[in-house]
């Protein structure tokens, strides 16, 4: 029964009493074009006031038949399409696919190419993590300022990519057994300069945002992902490590030549948004360490294994190759019948799987926090939908 509001007498109240008004939950469809959703992604949220009581991620708006396309195409033709999976980290995607094919075909990668691959992959990690910090802050309402700091540094790395591969984002650089083109000494010198300046940028970025009280208030103890749930939901990458699980494929598999480098794996304690942000910050410092070692040790020699790309055939069988992409475990499951094209091609995309526990992290938080939590998952819709 609703009490009539009166402005006369002693019964004057601005707001009705608790329980005096019948309330109901509100279902909001956020997306697919909400500015903070990092692409065409929709969240169906049920709100009780401002609190999230249910959340359903809806994706598929960017589905473009990637896996089926690859099955219709020869082995080489899929490499440019892997660029478009996670368009922020095309070098890592190239590597994951080439790694899977190399395992299946038993190709030995050239020594110099291994170093170039590590350099490219770690540069990609720097791009991804520093931009993630910017995007996360944009989601929290900081608009573009931190993002533009990140983009300023990203530009320098993209210039390196362009000089080596020819393209800034869709690099299409790695080939089975090596890379497509060699890098010269000028390139290495430029890369050393960028890497050498990177710690200073990280210090600046951290001075800009890490201590910020608003950031701390918006991220600490928000969207906690418990360790057990993270493991059960097969979360990988910085999200898993922020929950305190020591699992880095660079350490576990030691694929490529990662066993030669000295680096540590930063871990979080609480598993909240702040940990996810800060683990990435620390990871960048480790990446800089790897880069410095790789740029110092890179040997002379051939940059590919002399594999003929035309009519390239893979022996029959199936295999799974995975690498630690900036967003998590990026794996390719390939089945070959011995022909020039894969029989089955499956992508294990990290951001897709990391997204599946979005509801668990958002429940009980405000709707504005749901955006920040989504930002901390670090998704790229090209990879989620494929």
């Amino acid at each position, binding site marked *: 029964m609703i009490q009539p509001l009166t402005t006369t007498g002693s019964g004057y109240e601005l707001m009705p009493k608790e329980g005096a008004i019948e309330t109901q939950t509100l279902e909001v469809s956020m997306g697919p074009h909400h500015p903070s959703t990092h692409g065409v992604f929709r969240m169906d949220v049920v709100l009780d006031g401002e609190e999230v009581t249910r959340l359903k991620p809806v994706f598929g708006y960017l589905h473009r038949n990637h896996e089926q396309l690859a099955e219709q195409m020869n082995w080489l033709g*899929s490499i440019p399409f892997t660029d478009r999976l996670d368009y922020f980290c095309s070098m890592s995607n190239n590597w994951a696919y080439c790694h899977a094919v190399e395992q299946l075909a038993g190709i030995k990668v050239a020594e110099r190419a291994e170093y170039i691959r590590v350099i490219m992959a770690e540069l990609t990690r720097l791009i991804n993590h520093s931009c993630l910090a910017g995007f996360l802050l944009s989601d929290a309402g900081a608009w573009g300022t931190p993002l533009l700091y990140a983009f300023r540094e990203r530009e320098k790395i993209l210039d390196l990519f*362009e000089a080596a591969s020819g393209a800034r984002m869709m690099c299409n650089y790695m080939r089975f057994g090596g890379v497509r083109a060699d890098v010269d000494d000028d390139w290495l010198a430029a890369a050393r300069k960028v890497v050498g300046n990177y710690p200073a940028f990280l210090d600046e970025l951290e001075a800009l945002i890490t201590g910020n009280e608003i950031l701390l208030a918006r991220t600490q103890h928000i969207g906690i992902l418990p360790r057990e749930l993270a493991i059960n939901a097969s979360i990988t990458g910085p999200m898993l490590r922020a929950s305190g699980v020591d699992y880095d494929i660079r350490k576990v598999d030691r694929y490529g030549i990662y066993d030669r480098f000295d680096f540590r794996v930063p871990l979080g304690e609480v598993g909240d948004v702040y940990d996810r942000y800060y683990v990435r910050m620390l990871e960048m410092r480790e990446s800089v360490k790897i880069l410095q070692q790789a740029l110092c040790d890179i040997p002379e020699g051939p940059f590919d294994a002399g594999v003929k790309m*035309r009519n390239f055939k893979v022996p029959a069988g199936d295999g799974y190759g995975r690498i630690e992409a900036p967003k998590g475990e990026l794996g390719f499951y390939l089945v070959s019948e011995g022909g020039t094209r894969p029989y089955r091609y499956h992508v294990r995309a990290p951001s897709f799987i990391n997204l599946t526990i979005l509801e668990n992290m958002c429940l009980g938080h405000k709707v504005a926090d749901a955006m920040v939590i989504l930002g901390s998952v670090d998704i790229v819709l090209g990879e989620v939908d494929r």
Partner: protein
Amino acid sequence: MFGHGLLQGLIVTARNFIRSYFDPERLTTVQYPEERVKLPENSRSFPFLVYDGAPDNLRCVACKICEQECPPQCIYIEVERDPKTGKPVRRPRVFDIDYSVCMQCQICAEVCPFDAIKMDQVYELAGTNRFGGMLHNKSALLKSNEYYHQIHPTEADEVDAHLSQSRKKMPGATALSTGPKPPNV
């Protein structure tokens, strides 16, 4: 102290703002289109066809390898036929690339055994016709070897050295006749 982190962030912003007036390194943008960034030599955009000397003397023999290998299938080739005998000659009659489909992966340039198709560096290609406006035919795609030398000097020198070597191996023959026969169509 509460607010210390916030102030620290503002100091970083202020420092960047003020230094941008004194340190040219801190100006990270250019005034496009009046100013342009010089592209690196390896930079690539869309494919074009290379000819030596005159546009009739193009390197392409219409072997259709690029057409087969092109991942988004944006290349269309028809072999030219001799008007008298009707037999195919080693030249393309039609060579179309739809730039709106091309994804600039340069696999065509990589697989071409005749070094006939290379990657251009043009980027201001916006048009108003979305249906076929980006379809480039043979005459639009043909560019000289000198132009290729201009945009990719190192790579072009390597290609020239490689081509002249293969010409030497077969005395009297030109580069056009060193490759395999085109498939029957």
